[in-house]
């Protein structure tokens, strides 16, 4: 908005894409108030007449009619401007395309991933406005691999990687907690293009490297299925094998609710396992970069893995200042030590967890394998019981307030 100056009223201006329009005159015929006209070259919309009744939208055979740009109210594109166009002017940062629907894959994956939430999710009231579906299956963005680093120890059983994608001059704005879709090249056994795969963004909104148009992903190489049978994950292996400089087709971003609060004093309680740490890293890094602002609020993290060497971002997490984040690691396969899971740690830290659950400025995020859902739910129930709270009453309230977010796979 700053580009338009203070006090400028911004409005949507209905426009016709001259590149797609075939001049069939249907829109002009349909318009009940004569807001559409044409010359020998283009069909155009009168800014001061069009009242957005949308009568022209469905009958247009090409889709050319369904366009707009955000403009300053007193400085719309004139008819003369529009008559001179071969293409629409580039979309500014204010234009969020609202496509018919998200890709089927995204809707399906999202439904499964958020099932553990137990109801419709809402974003925190202070979440930033997310852009979604800017790049569609038909027109994916092309990103360049800027880096691909192994996060887990060489002798660890899993190969988890930190992959940095650079978008160059292509707009791909993301918020912490959002996902992007990767289109693996090639086709499946049936000759069909592979389905897209969703990955949570692991970097904060202003880039993996602040001020750069890049983001990072946390990708685990899939070589076995949930039951442990060997299987080669198409997309994860594709991503993990990518070298610097290679190109990747990216769609999205997606996600409108698993977003972090932004108001000063807001606290974040994070529970994750494995690559579920990606959105937690993004939120934590966002807060770390803003530490100097002293905005207040706490970060508390419960992070489960088999062993320290299997835990992505173990080293960097250990170096975070204690006053920024309260970290609790649970390792289930360390020799000579009892198995510990995140739910055990939540019970151990019962007082701190209860304090956060009571604080209406705190927000809960759970991300990781499906199997953790039940254990965490039971642990939170126990915490409530021990502190004279009713989990069955609290959970719907948390959801209602946009304070409880689950993404599991």
């Amino acid at each position: 908005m700053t580009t338009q100056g203070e006090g400028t009223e911004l409005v949507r201006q209905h426009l016709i894409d001259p590149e797609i329009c075939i001049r069939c005159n249907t829109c002009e015929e349909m318009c009940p108030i004569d807001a559409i006209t044409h010359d020998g070259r283009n069909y155009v919309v009168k800014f001061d007449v069009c009242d957005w009744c949308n009568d022209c939208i469905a009958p247009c055979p090409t889709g050319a009619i369904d366009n707009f740009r955000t403009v300053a109210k007193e400085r719309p594109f004139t008819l003369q401007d529009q008559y001179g166009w071969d293409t629409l002017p580039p979309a500014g940062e204010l234009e969020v395309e609202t496509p018919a629907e998200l890709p089927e894959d995204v809707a399906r994956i999202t439904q499964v991933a958020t099932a553990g939430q137990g109801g419709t999710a809402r974003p925190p009231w202070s979440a930033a406005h997310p852009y979604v579906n800017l790049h569609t299956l038909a027109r994916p963005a092309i990103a360049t691999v800027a880096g691909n680093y192994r996060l887990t120890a060489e002798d660890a059983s899993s190969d988890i990687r930190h992959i940095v994608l650079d978008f160059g001059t292509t707009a791909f704005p993301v918020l912490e907690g959002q996902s992007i879709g990767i289109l693996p090249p090639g086709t499946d056994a049936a000759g069909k293009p592979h389905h897209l795969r969703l990955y949570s963004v692991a970097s904060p909104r202003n880039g993996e490297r602040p001020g750069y148009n890049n983001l990072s992903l946390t990708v685990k190489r899939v070589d076995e299925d949930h039951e442990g049978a060997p299987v080669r994950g198409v997309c994860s292996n594709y991503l993990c094998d990518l070298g610097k400089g290679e190109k990747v087709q990216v769609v999205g971003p997606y996600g409108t609710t698993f977003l972090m609060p932004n108001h000063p004093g807001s606290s974040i309680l994070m529970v994750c396992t494995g690559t579920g740490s990606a959105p937690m890293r993004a939120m934590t890094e966002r807060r770390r970069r803003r530490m100097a602002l002293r905005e207040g609020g706490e970060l508390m993290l419960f992070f489960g893995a088999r062993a320290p060497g299997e835990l992505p971002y173990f080293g960097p997490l250990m170096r975070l200042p204690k006053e920024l984040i309260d970290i609790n690691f649970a390792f289930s396969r360390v020799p000579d030590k009892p198995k510990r899971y995140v739910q055990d740690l939540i019970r151990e830290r019962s007082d701190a967890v209860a304090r956060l659950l009571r604080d209406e400025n705190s927000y809960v995020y759970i991300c990781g394998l499906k199997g953790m859902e039940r254990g965490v739910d039971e642990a939170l129930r126990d915490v409530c019981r021990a502190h004279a709270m009713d989990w069955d009453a609290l959970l719907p309230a948390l959801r209602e307030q946009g304070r409880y977010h689950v993404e599991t796979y």
Partner: protein
Amino acid sequence: MSINYSERIPNNVDLASNRTLQRALEHWQPAYLDWWNEMGPEKTQSAEVYLRTAISVEPKGWAHFDYVKMPDYRWGIFLTPRDENRTISFGAHKGEPVWQEVPGEYRSTLRRIIVTQGDTEPASVEQQRHLGLTCPSLYDMRNLFQVNVEEGRHLWAMVYLLHAHFGRDGREEGEALLERRSGDADNPRILTAFNEKTPDWLSFFMFTFITDRDGKFQLAALAESAFDPLSRTCRFMLTEEAHHMFVGESGVARIIQRTCELMAQHKTDDPAKIRALGAIDLPTLQRYLNFHFSVTSDLYGNEISSNAATFYTNGLKGRFDETKIADDHSLQGSEYPVLDVVGDRVVGRHAPALSTLNERLRDDWVADVAAGVARWNRVPEKHGIPFRFTLPHKGFHRRIGLFAEYHVSPQGELMSEADWTHRHGEWLPTAEDRAFVHSLMGRVAEPGKFANWIAPPSVGINKQPVNFEYVRFS
């Protein structure tokens, strides 16, 4: 008024209140379905197609998208809502209220006009029935079928007029419309262009770009008619016709796009090399354009026509955008330029405007085609390729009208028979061209995949992605 889907024949004309008419149409409907099953798209009748169906004539209602098996498509009768105050806008009856019934003296003429228009609709379905087998993508296949079912609906629209307003004669004409066959030696379709084959997708795109545009101008002229039911029928048909021209214009543009991409990539303009790369070279596209343009031009009839004058004066058929033209709308005493042949030259002369209405409609159509061709030319321009498509002279390759007895080059020079025989292969598709284009026609029917000779569209249908499953096979 919304469309009553509970009736056997969806309509917004209150069919239920006229039992005789309803029964006549219900009798015609099974015959229509038999025709569709016999002559409609080949071997794809069981496929589920993502089609647009009109569910009301209101702007927001008539584009309803869903998967439909073509034989289950709800063909119905939809007229643009009646304007009670509409008056006749041209001819001798100008200013009088429009007619809701056919005046006796114009009965046979109007019937002939409606039958001729109606005959083109099933004809094009017949011409295109094999194309589904060689579609370059599911997206294109869906567009073909959308065009086909809407041509079917346009036949319904015309048959409704025949049944509702022309009694027994009209019913017989309705049956005859299902009996003629495109290209049949014994019982052909009425107009020559509709007996030509549509053997490949390039021809289909050219046909929908150029010949369906003739449909647009004929319908627009009939939408001015004093016979109000015909006017309202044609108005609604025009909204559907727009999609057909979109299919053609964007189809050819995507072929040009693909060819230009390969030309730029391989830095060549050699047609042989382009063909070796599996794309259609630009000169071949120009020859197809010349062919379809000239054949369709014949559909407008003779340049000087007393029939056209009579139709106009009697208020049966107006000019394109009649109500937007600022003149006396009677054309008594005014003139219009036409071409003529004097000696060995093509010259211009003025003729009485009333007798040149065919030519005037043709000129409006030529300007509209030319605008589309100009948009095609943006594609090579963008790729830095100097080639530009041009429309041939109006006298080129004509079989009807003034130029039928002459040979005229695309540049408008009269030619001897010998010259023409020697050179016409430069301007019209040769047997070799057609064989080459035919050789490219293989079926691509996986979502998101496109044949090598055509670029994907820039946007999908109804905002669906390009790799949407536009046709599902059971």
